[in-house]
């Protein structure tokens, strides 16, 4: 409380610190302590000496999930080996996956010119980053033999023949099923569906009040689109044809939208993901019979439910259609506007794209050790197989049956993604007409492509 009245009221002998002086001193001291912290907090990724930063969503971190710990360790080891043998040092910066995928940290960093020197990129984001001029050309650091070794895995990461991202994995989609549920329903291997109708019939047979017969992704986002594309491709449909012309308004598109809509409408597929999206929990809890999922879940099953009986099969096809699945997977990228793009690009190639044994072995360790993926390089795939990484029934199926019919995840920019996403969501969950949603999305994509400036969309 402020002193009222005149200062004569103060005892003459009061030579100690007054309350006001004390507060002033505290405020000054507080400011002195807080200022460096605030300024450090405002500092950029690039303002920290000459060390490059590698932002990722794997490590370093500690997790109760042994699979995640192994993946984190792979990143730590990779960067550790580079740091031990190179003058340019790299810091690993871990961002939790939701923050990396949906947060504002990464986009904000790039928007302010403070993006990380090395980062992970999904195919869905490739064009946005390429058109933004932040992807460094990795080609000068790559041997031709290495480019050939990657083969078609690089297609969606190339522009005008130059490579701008190196895939660390290939992740095909398949249908996972619960063997115990299957057997209890009197089904056998012979009942594994190969057509859409069979899949719906089996799903209908296996569902109950607390168990989903068949699960498709329900949350709107790039991932849902990724899981829907193969159903459209199987009927011969596409978003854009080979020349980049809009081809979305087709019979195959309508057919694929109808498949998901029918599955939900008839209660075969749920409107939300079982167990809040926890695949292993959903299967173990008996809440799922079949779930369209990716190869990465094999390592999760191994870690969390090693004794659980599950199987995988190729995505069924529509009448007259042919088998296709979608191949996902993340890449290493170097920031062309970073502190040292050359060193960053060199790191990406050293880590994943060199013809040296340790580079190939590193990819093998990632794809069949830390994770469960198909290796994007032929040499790594062969070595991984020789090492026994694809010996299990499930991994063998992924390598020999599911992956060979795969097609890389498209690199459509946000407007195209959003138009397709709205069509999927509108038909699947809001019960809107398939024809109307297809036409609306096609119009939206056409309008966008007319004004689009940038690298080829296909």
């Amino acid at each position, binding site marked *: 409380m402020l002193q009222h009245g*005149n200062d004569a009221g103060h005892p003459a002998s009061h030579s100690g610190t007054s309350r006001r002086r004390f507060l002033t001193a505290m405020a000054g001291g507080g400011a002195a302590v807080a200022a460096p912290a605030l300024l450090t907090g405002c500092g950029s990724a690039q303002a920290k000496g000459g060390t490059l930063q590698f932002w990722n969503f794997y490590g370093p971190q500690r997790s109760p999930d042994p699979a995640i710990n192994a993946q984190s360790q792979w990143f730590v080891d990779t960067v550790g080996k580079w740091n031990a043998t190179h003058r340019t040092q790299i810091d690993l910066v871990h961002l939790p996956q939701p923050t990396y995928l949906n947060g504002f940290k990464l986009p904000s960093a790039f928007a302010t010119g403070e993006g990380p020197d090395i980062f992970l990129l999904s195919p869905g984001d490739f064009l946005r980053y390429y058109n933004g001029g932040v992807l460094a050309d990795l080609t000068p650091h790559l041997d031709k033999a290495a480019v050939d070794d990657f083969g078609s895995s690089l297609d969606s990461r190339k522009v005008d023949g130059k490579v701008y991202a190196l895939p660390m994995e290939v992740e095909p989609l398949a249908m996972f099923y619960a063997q115990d549920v299957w057997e209890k329903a009197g089904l056998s291997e012979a009942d594994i569906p190969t057509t859409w109708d069979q899949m719906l019939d089996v799903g209908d047979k296996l569902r109950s*009040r607390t168990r*989903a017969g068949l699960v498709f992704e329900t949350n709107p986002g790039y991932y849902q689109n990724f899981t829907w594309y193969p159903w459209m491709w199987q009927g011969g449909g596409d978003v854009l044809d080979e020349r980049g012309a809009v081809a979305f308004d087709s019979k195959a598109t309508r057919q694929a939208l109808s498949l998901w809509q029918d599955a939900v409408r008839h209660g075969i597929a749920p409107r939300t993901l079982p167990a809040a999206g926890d695949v292993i929990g959903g299967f173990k809890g008996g809440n799922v019979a079949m779930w369209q999922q990716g190869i990465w879940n094999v390592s999760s099953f191994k870690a969390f439910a090693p004794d659980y009986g599950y199987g995988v099969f190729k995505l069924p096809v529509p009448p007259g259609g042919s088998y296709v699945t979608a191949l996902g997977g993340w890449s290493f990228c170097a920031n062309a506007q970073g502190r040292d793009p050359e060193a960053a690009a060199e790191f990406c190639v050293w880590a994943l794209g060199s013809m040296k044994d340790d580079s190939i072995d590193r990819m093998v360790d990632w794809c069949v050790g830390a994770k469960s993926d198909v290796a994007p390089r032929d040499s790594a795939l062969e070595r991984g197989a020789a090492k026994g990484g694809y010996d299990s029934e499930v991994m063998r199926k992924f390598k020999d049956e599911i992956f060979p019919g795969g097609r890389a995840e498209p690199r459509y920019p946000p*407007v195209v993604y959003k138009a397709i996403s*709205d069509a999927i969501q509108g038909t699947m969950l*809001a019960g809107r007409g398939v024809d109307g949603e297809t036409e609306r999305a096609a119009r939206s994509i056409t309008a966008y492509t007319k004004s689009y400036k940038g690298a080829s969309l296909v």
Partner: protein
Amino acid sequence: MSSVAAQERRRTGAAPTRTSTSSERPRLSRRHREWLAAGLFLAPDVLGLLVFVAVPMVLSIALSFFQVSGFGSYEWIGLGNYERMLDDPLFWDSMKITGLYVVVLVPVLFCVSLALGLLVKQRLPGIGVYRTALFLPYVVSLVVVGVLWKFLLDEQTGAVNRAMRAAGFDGESWLGSPSLALGCVIAVMVWVMMGYYMIIFLAGLQEIPKEFYEAAKIDGAGPWTTFRTITWPLLRPTSFFVLLMSTVAAITGGLDLIFVLTNGGPANGTSLAIFYIYQQAFGFGEYGYASAMGSFLVLIMVLVSAVIFKFTRGGRFDDGE
């Protein structure tokens, strides 16, 4: 004595001594000292508002006139982003959803919080425990709240559907149906926020002099009459505060919850304007467009706040004369 010393210093040009300075420093008047103290106390807040609210707001408005790549390039496009906004059906859908959300959430939250405030004002045994329990959801992260409710509302195994089935009803897809999802988000938000506004109402209720209630009791007024003629009118400043704050919170908040619960789905059914703006900015790198929409949303918020001020007279007891 001191003026003689000063004259001597001026004459000789000698530097003032430490002793003479402390004894002769011109003193600020009491009024000025109070001004200074007030200024110093206000400075941190004002500085914070300037740095973290006013400056970003001005920058955001400026940004709305540019096409921003998200990678450092800016191109002046004038009102281009605003024209795009006018033609964007998804934005207007999100505004409609936001309108519905605010119109339902704010009154429900107001009534529930007021009812709880009246309830926990009672002198009952263990009332502190109830107050704490009701306030607890407010201190929990919205992400945690979202995960919790996602499990509770799960289609197959959620506690809500289990209870419904046990009671002989069919379960619902609470978060997977466009007609139910927004209602669920509103219900969860009420659950989260009610404790906070309950405390605000409780503070307001405790400000009302007991004598008024005693007089009403002597006059034979029942609970409803007491509430209508004493509690409600005297709660006006508190009601205004709750109304204004909850409206602003409804228009601009809930982003974390939407992310976890529905990610804007199903079929954009919970894509509030703030979610759509966030998605455009940080998902699609459309910072200029997002800034235009954000500026428009702020304008709407200012207008809504002005209307609330107008109709509640800013919570004052007088007529504003």
